[in-house]
Each structure stands twice: as structure tokens, then as C-alpha cells.
């Protein structure tokens, strides 16, 4: 379960500030996968960062029933460690969480096979393409054996064949672990989410929740992506 109570967040950059959320409250039930939609600048990434714990600069309360949260950043290069190999990047959070490393290595082989990984784990992140970095970031999150998987535009750097593979994988994966994702492609979030939360353009407007089967995504949201 994810519970947000009176979340307020202001975004400041170069003396310009913008109120993203004002006393936003919502609850997402266990085992429910949710797509977070909205125009650019509506706070989708901020919401995911607040829920994952990456962003602590907000007021209000976030309650998670999940003990381990996997998080895939919009720009994976930002949170991969370029001084460690891909393998170490993937296993480091798992090792820190006290999970079995041998099992982790077996899982890694299994996921690498499913996702048809075509690069060596002994490389360093700076040697990888954007898509490969995104896959690395996903593997790192998966190996944490999360109880909630948060994905911020997980397909943005992937080519079409890899996108299909990852989507197919996540479609099956969400049966055991709910997803919270941002994606601009209807064919992606409609397959991976049970419902959609649509963030408004202005913080004073209400957040809309819609069952994914009934989503009528406005042209404006798609065009602004």
C-alpha cells in the first residue's frame, strides 16, 4: 500500500519557484499497479522520487507497506556508479540489503537471458549506451527483490525490440510485484497498470484517478509528452 498524506512540494531552480503539489493525499492499494500521467512539469518524476524516498524535500507524510522499493530513474546514468562495473552496480544494493548474493547472481543470469542482454557485466556504465544503462538500472532494481517497483519512463532509451522484451517481462512481473510507473506511451502503461493517476497542470486542481480500461487520454497529454 502507498499512502500520501498532505504532500506539498515546491520546486526551485535559479530563483524561480513553482508549487508542484499542495496537500496532495491519495492511497494506492496493495497489488495495484498504477501509471502516473500528466503534462510535462506536472510533477510526475517528483511524485515518484518522493514515494521512493529519493526526494526528501517536501512536507507531509508518505507511508509504504513495502520494505524494499526498486527504483529506475528517468536518466539512469545519473544514479549508476561509473567507477564500478555493471555487475557491481547491479549487486551493490542487494548486498547492502543483506540478500543472498549467490541467489542474486543466479537471478541476474536468468533476467539477462529473458531480456536478451548483449553487453558484458564487466564493462563500466560509461561504456554503455543509454538503453544499456537503462537495462542495467532495471536489473539493479529487480535484484533488490522489491515489493514495489517504481519506474520513471523505463522505455525511453530502448529500441523497439528491447522495448517489447521489457514490456513483456514487466507484464508478467507485475503479477508478483506492483508497479508504479511514468510512461508517455499508451500502449505501454495500458498493459502495465491497473489504474492511472493524472496529475493536473496546476497544483490547486484535483488529481484524477481512472481505471486503466476506461482511460481516455486526452490529445493534450500525449502531445505535451
Amino acid at each position, binding site marked *: 500500500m502507498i499512502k500520501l498524506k498532505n504532500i506539498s512540494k515546491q520546486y526551485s531552480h535559479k530563483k524561480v519557484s513553482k508549487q508542484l503539489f499542495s496537500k496532495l493525499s491519495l492511497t494506492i492499494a496493495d497489488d495495484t499497479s498504477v501509471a502516473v500521467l500528466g503534462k510535462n512539469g506536472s510533477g510526475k518524476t517528483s511524485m515518484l522520487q518522493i514515494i*521512493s*524516498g*529519493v*526526494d*526528501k524535500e517536501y512536507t507531509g507524510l508518505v507511508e509504504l507497506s513495502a520494505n524494499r*522499493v526498486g*527504483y529506475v*530513474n528517468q536518466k539512469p546514468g*545519473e*544514479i549508476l*556508479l*561509473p*567507477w*564500478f562495473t555493471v555487475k557491481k552496480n547491479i549487486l*551493490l*544494493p542487494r548486498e*547492502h*540489503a543483506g540478500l543472498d548474493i549467490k541467489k542474486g547472481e543466479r537471478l541476474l543470469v536468468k533476467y539477462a537471458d529473458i531480456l536478451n542482454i548483449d553487453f558484458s557485466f564487466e564493462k*563500466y*556504465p*560509461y*561504456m554503455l549506451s543509454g538503453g544499456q544503462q537503462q537495462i542495467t538500472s532495471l536489473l539493479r532494481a529487480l535484484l*533488490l527483490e522489491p515489493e514495489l517497483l517504481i519506474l520513471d519512463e523505463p522505455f525511453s532509451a530502448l529500441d523497439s525490440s528491447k522495448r517489447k522484451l521489457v514490456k513483456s517481462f514487466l507484464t508478467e512481473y507485475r503479477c508478483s510485484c506492483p508497479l508504479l510507473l511514468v510512461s508517455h506511451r499508451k500502449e505501454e502503461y495500458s498493459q502495465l497498470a491497473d489504474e492511472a493517476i493524472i496529475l493536473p497542470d496546476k497544483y490547486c486542481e484535483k488529481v484524477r484517478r481512472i481505471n486503466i480500461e476506461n482511460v481516455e487520454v486526452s490529445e493534450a497529454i500525449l502531445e505535451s509528452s
Partner: protein
Amino acid sequence: MKVHSGTLGLTIIVAIWQLVDLLQLFNPIYFASPLEVLAESFDILSTSTIYSDISHTVLRVLTALVISLLVGVPVGLLLGYYSKIHALFGGFLDFMRSIPPVVFFPLFYIALGPNDSSRIMTAALGASVLGILVVSKYTMQLDKTRLHYFRSLNFSQFMLFKNIIWYESLPAVIVAAKAISSWVVVIIIVTEMLVGPKHGLGARVQSVQITNNIPDLFFTIILIGAVGLIINILITMTEKRLIFWLQSD
């Protein structure tokens, strides 16, 4: 034949230098040509005192450099990562940076005596302040997203330092080392000139000035530059090994 740009540039400078001498643009009483300096250099390098001078200066420089980095890097990291601490001491550091470090030499001379300690501590003081400022400024500008992500995974401060902060700070350490090394060479040479020790390149400058051996003086100045250059080259070589992930950019 492909010529390295640096070699070509150096050749041009030496040619201009020779031309200046040929045209006698400066009084030959206080100006030496490249050929005169080269001839003098053979005499100088065949004597044993020059090597003692070089080694004493290099040892003082390296000692002061190490002390400055040991002080400057941790304090700089602290100020860079914790803005409240920076707010407390940033102004004081800017004030200290404005004071020429060599003015502290008389104080250290009185406190520590007429030996290497006073020279080294003077250089270390000035260079530490510069190091703190360079490291803290670099650290403040770092994107903290990576740190926040691992903090969200409940990494302890020690684990954050071991896996992230240390590596993220290495570029700042290298930048600081390059800035500090030049500063340290200057301060050590000046303090060697002020109250001359028995050995050292700064002391050599003073004694050569008395004998009025201009080619020797020119050569000693070039040696001092070479010491600084070699230290910089060593730092650059260390940089390529330590922060390999940035070399590919």
C-alpha cells in the same frame, strides 16, 4: 614529419628568446641567450650542489603538498556537503585567501625556528586554504541525485562515503592538487629566498644573484619551472588512473 604541438611551441619561444638576444633588446648585463644558458647548464649539472638544491626543494614542496591535501580535502568535503557549515566558515576562508601566505613566514620562523618546518608550514597554510576552497566549491556543485538514491536505500554514512562520496570527490582532489602544487612551489621558493637555508633552489637564486652569474640564474629559474611542471605531470598521470571514468568523456 609530424611535430608535437608543444615541442613546436617551445621551439618558437626559444627562437624568439635567441632573437631578442641577437637584437640586444635587453642589456646583456642582465640577459642571457639560450645558448649561454645551455652552455652554463653543462657546468651546473656536473656539480653536486645542484642536485642537493633540487632534492631539498622538492622534498619541502612534496611535504607541504601532502599536508595541504590532508587538511584541504576533508575540510573542503565537509564544507561542500554541509551548506550550514560552509555558511559558518566560508567568509573566513575568503578572508584568509586574500592574505599572501608568505606573510605568515616570520610567525612560523619565530615559533618553529630557522628550519624547514617554518617554510613547509607557511606553504601548507596557504595551500590548505586554497585546497579547502577548491574542493568545497566543486563538491557544492555536484549533482546529489546519486547520493539521495543510495540514501533512500538506507546506506549508512560510512557506506555512502566508501562507495560514492570518495569517488565523486576524486576529481575535486585532483583539481585541488594541481592548484595547490603551483602555489606550494611559489611559497617554498620565496621562503628559501627570504631566509636562505643551506640548500634549495630559492637559496640558489639568492647566491647566484650575488655572484651576478646571469646564465646560471636563468637556468635556475628554468629548473624551478621544471620542478612545478614535473609535479603537475605526475598529478595528471595519477588523474588518468584514479578517475578513469571521466577520461573517456
